C-alpha cells in the first residue's frame, strides 16, 4: 500500500514537473509569437515611412510603429539608474523619430565583460541592434558568425558616417567587407616622450618642437637628468609586464589589422613598403633593444620595470620619474600633466601615420540577430550627422550633467559640470568615448574652445598613409594555432626587452628562435599572400 502511495506521489510530482516545463515553454512560444508580430508591424512601419517620404508630422506621432534600436552602453562601474537612462533615451527619441522614425533603448554593459556579454547576448538571441567592440577588432565576431555584413547599407544609408570618418572607415573592414564602423576622432597620433617641464628647465634643456628626436639623443637628455637627480630617480615610467614600446610608440609599424605575431610593415623604411616582415628581427628593433638595455644599465629604467603593474601616471605622481613614452598629439601632454600634477613637454620621436589598426579600437557592428539591420545602421549613421545625439549619449542632458560655458560659431562648445556634480556622481555620464564624432562633442573646462578645431586641422595635416590602409589580416585555420603560439612568445619577450632587463646579444637570438619555432614564418607567408591579393584587387 505504502508503495502505491509512493508511486502516486511520484506520478504527481512528475506530472507537476511536466506541467511546469510545458507552461515554461508555452511562455516562450507566446512571447516568441508576440515578438515576431511586433517585428512584422515594425518592418511594416518602416516601409510606410519610406513611401510617405519622411512626412514628419506622421512620423513623430507614429511613435507606436517606430522601430526600437537597442544599443550597447559602456559602463565603467557607473551604470545610471533606469530613470536616468530613460530621460536620455527620450531626449534622443525626440531627434530620431522625426529623422528616421526609430526609438532607442540603451543596453548597459560593464566594460570588463563587454566581449563575453556581447557574444552571450547575441548567441542567446537577446534583442540587440548595435554592439561595440573595444580594442579587439571585428575579426573574432565575424568568424564566429555574430555580426552582419554592412556593405549593402553603406552607400544608401551611410552618407554621414562616410564623410565624417573618411580614411578611418578602413578600420571596419574584414575579408574585404565592412563589418564595423569606428568612432570618429583624430585620424592618427604623434608619438614620443613626455618629459617633466620643471626638470627640463632645471637642467637648461631646450626641446625643439619641430624636430624628431632619436633614441640616442633622448639618452643624452636622460644622462643629464639622471646625473643631476641621482639614486632613486628614474627616467622612464609607464613600463609594465605587458609593454611593447617599439610597436606601441616608436617603430612606425603597420600591424595590418592584427598584432605583430603575424608580422608587420616597417614603414620607417619607406611609406610604400609592402613586404611583411618579422619586425623583431629588423635592424631597427635591434638598435631599440640596445638602447633600452644601455638605459637600464645606466639606471634610467628601474630594474624591476618588467614586473611592474602600476600605471605610468601613478609612477609619475610619485615624483621620482622624469617622464614616459606616450602620444604627443595635442591634448595628450596636458591631460596626462593634469593627472599627475606636473607640467609635461612633448619630445617628438615618431611621425603621425594612418594604418588600419589605428581605427580598429572602437568598432560598432550590427548583430545577426537584429530584426532590422538597416534601421540600426541608419541610427548609427545619425550619430555622425550634425546633431546632438552623440553628445547626449556621452554626457546626458544639458542642465542636468553639464552647463555650457562658452560657444562659438563653429558649433564648438566648452562645458562644465553642473554645480555639485562630478563625473562619478553625475546622473548620467559615459566614460567610454565610443559614440559618433568625438570632435563634435563639447570639450570640458579647462580646455580651450579651439581644441577640437586644432585636432581637425591636425587630421587634415596627416599625409603619411600605409599602403595597406583598409587591409586586415584574416586569421585562417591553417595558421591559427601558430599565430597564438607566436603571440605568447611576443608577450614573453617584448616587455623585458622594452625594460632593457636582458642583454640583447643573447635574448634577441632566443626571441627570434622562439618565434621561428612557433611558426611565425608561416603566419607571415599567409599574411603576405592575403595582402598581395588585396593589393591586386585594389
Amino acid at each position, binding site marked *: 500500500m*505504502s508503495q502505491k502511495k509512493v508511486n502516486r506521489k511520484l506520478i504527481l510530482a512528475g506530472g507537476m514537473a511536466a506541467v511546469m516545463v510545458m507552461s515554461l515553454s508555452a511562455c516562450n512560444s507566446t512571447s516568441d509569437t508576440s515578438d515576431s508580430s511586433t517585428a512584422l508591424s515594425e518592418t511594416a512601419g518602416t516601409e510606410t515611412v519610406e513611401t510617405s517620404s519622411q512626412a514628419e508630422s506622421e512620423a513623430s506621432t507614429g511613435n507606436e510603429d517606430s522601430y526600437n534600436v537597442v544599443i550597447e552602453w559602456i559602463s565603467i562601474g557607473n551604470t545610471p539608474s533606469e530613470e536616468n537612462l530613460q530621460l536620455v533615451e527620450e531626449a534622443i527619441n525626440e531627434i530620431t523619430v522625426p529623422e528616421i522614425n526609430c526609438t532607442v533603448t540603451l543596453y548597459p554593459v560593464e566594460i570588463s565583460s563587454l566581449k563575453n556579454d556581447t557574444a552571450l547576448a547575441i*548567441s542567446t538571441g537577446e534583442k540587440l541592434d548595435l554592439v561595440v567592440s573595444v580594442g579587439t577588432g571585428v575579426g*573574432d565576431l565575424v568568424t*564566429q558568425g555574430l555580426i552582419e555584413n554592412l556593405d549593402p547599407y553603406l552607400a544608401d544609408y551611410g552618407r554621414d558616417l562616410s564623410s565624417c570618418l573618411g580614411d578611418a572607415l578602413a578600420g571596419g573592414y574584414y575579408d574585404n567587407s565592412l563589418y564595423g564602423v569606428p568612432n570618429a576622432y583624430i585620424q592618427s597620433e604623434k608619438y614620443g616622450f613626455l618629459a617633466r617641464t620643471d626638470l627640463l628647465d632645471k637642467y637648461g634643456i631646450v626641446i625643439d618642437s619641430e624636430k624628431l628626436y632619436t633614441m640616442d639623443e633622448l639618452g643624452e637628455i636622460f644622462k643629464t637628468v639622471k646625473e643631476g637627480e641621482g639614486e632613486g630617480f628614474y627616467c622612464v615610467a609607464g613600463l609594465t609586464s605587458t609593454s611593447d614600446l617599439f610597436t606601441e610608440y616608436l617603430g612606425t609599424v603597420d600591424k595590418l589589422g592584427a598584432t605583430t605575431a603575424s608580422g608587420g610593415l616597417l614603414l620607417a623604411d619607406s611609406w610604400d613598403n609592402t613586404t611583411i616582415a618579422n619586425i623583431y628581427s629588423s635592424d631597427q628593433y635591434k638598435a631599440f633593444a640596445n638602447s633600452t638595455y644601455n638605459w637600464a644599465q645606466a639606471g634610467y629604467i628601474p630594474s624591476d620595470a618588467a*614586473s611592474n603593474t602600476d600605471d605610468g601616471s601613478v609612477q609619475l605622481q610619485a615624483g621620482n620619474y622624469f617622464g614616459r613614452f606616450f602620444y604627443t598629439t595635442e591634448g595628450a601632454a596636458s591631460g596626462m600633466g593634469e593627472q599627475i600634477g606636473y607640467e609635461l613637454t612633448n619630445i617628438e620621436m615618431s611621425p603621425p601615420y594612418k594604418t588600419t589598426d589605428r581605427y580598429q579600437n572602437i568598432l560598432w557592428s550590427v548583430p545577426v540577430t537584429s530584426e532590422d539591420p538597416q534601421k540600426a545602421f541608419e541610427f548609427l549613421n545619425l550619430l555622425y550627422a550634425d546633431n546632438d545625439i552623440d553628445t547626449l549619449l556621452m554626457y546626458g542632458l544639458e542642465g542636468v550633467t553639464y552647463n555650457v560655458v562658452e560657444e562659438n560659431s563653429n558649433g564648438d562648445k566648452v562645458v562644465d559640470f553642473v554645480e555639485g556634480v562630478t563625473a562619478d556622481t553625475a546622473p548620467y555620464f559615459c566614460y567610454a568615448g565610443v559614440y559618433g564624432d568625438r570632435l563634435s562633442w563639447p570639450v570640458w573646462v579647462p580646455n580651450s574652445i579651439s581644441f577640437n578645431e586644432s585636432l581637425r586641422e591636425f587630421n587634415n595635416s596627416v599625409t603619411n598613409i600605409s599602403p595597406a590602409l583598409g587591409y586586415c589580416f584574416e586569421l585562417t585555420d591553417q595558421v591559427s594555432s601558430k599565430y597564438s603560439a607566436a603571440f605568447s612568445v611576443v608577450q*614573453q619577450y617584448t*616587455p623585458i626587452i622594452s625594460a632593457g632587463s636582458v642583454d640583447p646579444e643573447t635574448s634577441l637570438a632566443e626571441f627570434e628562435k622562439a618565434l621561428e619555432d612557433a611558426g611565425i614564418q608561416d603566419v607571415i607567408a599567409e599574411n603576405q599572400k592575403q595582402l598581395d591579393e588585396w593589393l591586386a584587387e585594389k
Partner: protein
Amino acid sequence: MNSAGRPKQKKKIRWRQVIPIYILALPGVVYMLCNNYLPMFGIIIAFKKLNFSKGIIASEWNGLQNFQFLFQSSTAFTIIRNTVLYNLVFIILGNILAILCAILLNEVVHRISARIYQSFILLPFLMSWVVIGYLGFAFLSADNGMINNSILEPLGKASVNWYNEPKYWPFILTMVQMWKTTGYMMIIYYSSILGISKDLYEAAVVDGASKLQQITSVTLPLLKPTIIVLVVLSMGRIFTSDFGLFYQVPKNTGTLYSVTQTIDVYVYNALMKRSDFGMSSAASVFQSLVGFVTVLVTNAIVRRKSRENAIF
C-alpha cells in the same frame, strides 16, 4: 542463496525501504546532474570551429586542430614540465608539512592557544593572490624590497635582482604555495587526528610507547586513509596549476617564464587577445583528461598495494 523465490521477495522488501531514501536524494542528484554532468556537453566545443550563428551542434568539426596550439611552440615541453613538477612537489611537500603541523597542533595541550595557532596558520589561505603578489613584491623588489634593503645590505652582500633571476623562483614559488595552503590542508588532517580514539594512545602509553612511537605507530597509520584520499584527489589536478600563483606572484615577468610558465599561464597569454572558445576549451579538456587518467592510475597503484585503502 538456496531457493529461487526468496531472493526475489527479499529484493521487493528492500526496494520498498529504499525508495523514500532515493526520493530524499533526488534533489541532490538532479542538482549534481545539472551542475556537473550537463556542462560536460560543452566538451564538444573543443573539437569544433565554433560559429555562433550556427550554434554549437551545427558548427563544423575540426578534429584536433584546437589542441595544436598547446604543442605548437618550443615551450610546450617547458610548460608541461613546470606544471607537473611543481604539482608533484606541492603534493608531497604540502602533505608532509600539513601532517607535521596537524600533529604538532594536536600536541598543544592548551586549547585556546591551539585555536590561535590554527587561525594564524590558516590566515594566508584566506588572502587573494593579487594581495600576495604585492606582498611578494614588497619583499623582493630590487630597489625598495625588504630582502635587499633590510637583510642583504646590512650583511654586506650585493643586492639581488629577484625578478630577473629564474634560478631562485622554484624555491620562492614553493615557499609561497606552502605558506598559503598548508593551513587549509592541516585542518583536514587535524580533524582526522581529533577523531582518533584516545584509548589507543592510552594503550600505547601503557605499553611504554614514547611520544615519537605514538606518532609513528598510532597517528600515522590511522591517518593513512585520509592521506591517500587527499593525494589521489590532488593527482587529478596535476595538469592544472593555480593561475594566481604562477601569474600574480612572479608578476608576469617574461624573464622568469622558463620556470614560472605553466599550462594555464600559457593559455592565458596565447589567447588573451582572442576569444577563441575552441582553443581554450581544448586546453581544459586536455588538462581534465590527463587528470582523470592520473587519478585512475594512482588509485590502481593504491589498490594493488592495499585494497582496503583504495578510493574505488
